[in-house]
């Protein structure tokens, strides 16, 4: 079973990297691009028959993201 955890900055938090990427793309001539949001994902492979969702949730909260500035979202792949 594979869980995918998405982590990205909360809305309103400055993401200087996304800003720099957007500027670069614009300067490369891709005019219609209006916004870029950046994030990370983790594919976590779990070898168990149990439902492991709540554990993944805990890992996401404690380790993979910082709740002060980031949100996460888990999907089962």
């Amino acid at each position, binding site marked *: 079973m594979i869980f995918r955890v998405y982590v990205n900055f909360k809305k309103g938090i400055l993401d*200087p*990297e996304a800003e*720099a*990427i957007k500027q*670069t793309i614009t*300067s*490369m001539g891709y005019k219609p691009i209006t916004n870029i949001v950046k994030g990370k994902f983790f594919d976590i492979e779990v070898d168990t028959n149990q439902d492991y969702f709540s554990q993944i949730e805990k890992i996401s909260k404690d380790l993979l993201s910082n709740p002060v500035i980031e949100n996460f979202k888990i999907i089962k792949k």
Partner: protein
Amino acid sequence: MAGKKDISIIIFPGSNCDRDLMVAINKCMGVMPKLVWHKTYHIKKTDMIFLPGGFSFGDYLRAGTIATKSPATKEIIRLSKKGVPIIGICNGFQILTECKLLDGALIKNFGQLFKCKETFLKVVNNKNKFLKNLNLNSILNFPIAHSQGNFHIDESGLKKLEDNNQIVFKYSSKLGKVDEFNNPNGSVKNIAGIINKEKNVLGLMPHPERAVEKNTSKDGIDFFKSIREII
């Protein structure tokens, strides 16, 4: 070296070793280099180009990537084809791999952390104009200061580098031992510096410009003196 030569240092927003490099070049090569802003669309005739260390464009995305989109980088690619010697140090090396003038890629250090320390480089190949004045197997003491200096290349790429004598520097001990204990960042085969097939583009992670003063190692002087001979 005959007459006044023209050496250029390209400055990207976020470059931060440009001054250090300028001082070192001036001191060891006897030429005050020209500083070229990254927005330069046409670089006139120049005898040698340096890409300095630092964090061009904040190292955002991948170190060196965004700098490949600057007009000056397009000029560097054009001039490299004409045989102009080009040297990239640290972030400069990362830019050169990102714009494909050099093979491989520089990924995050093995230990994940930024690392600043003294390292020793072994000259493992001097069959090129840059290093022909340095002895084979001689050891140079330059510091490193980077978080993405882990040189990566696949098997076949590595074989090509080896076959073409493109690997020039390897991390070693003070006495020249090349092994995992003397590999500061996880680079394949301890590779610290390579050149292109045509042997006019050189990239290395350690900082020779930080090894030319009284208070540091002085091995950088040998390095710059060696490359002075080629122009």
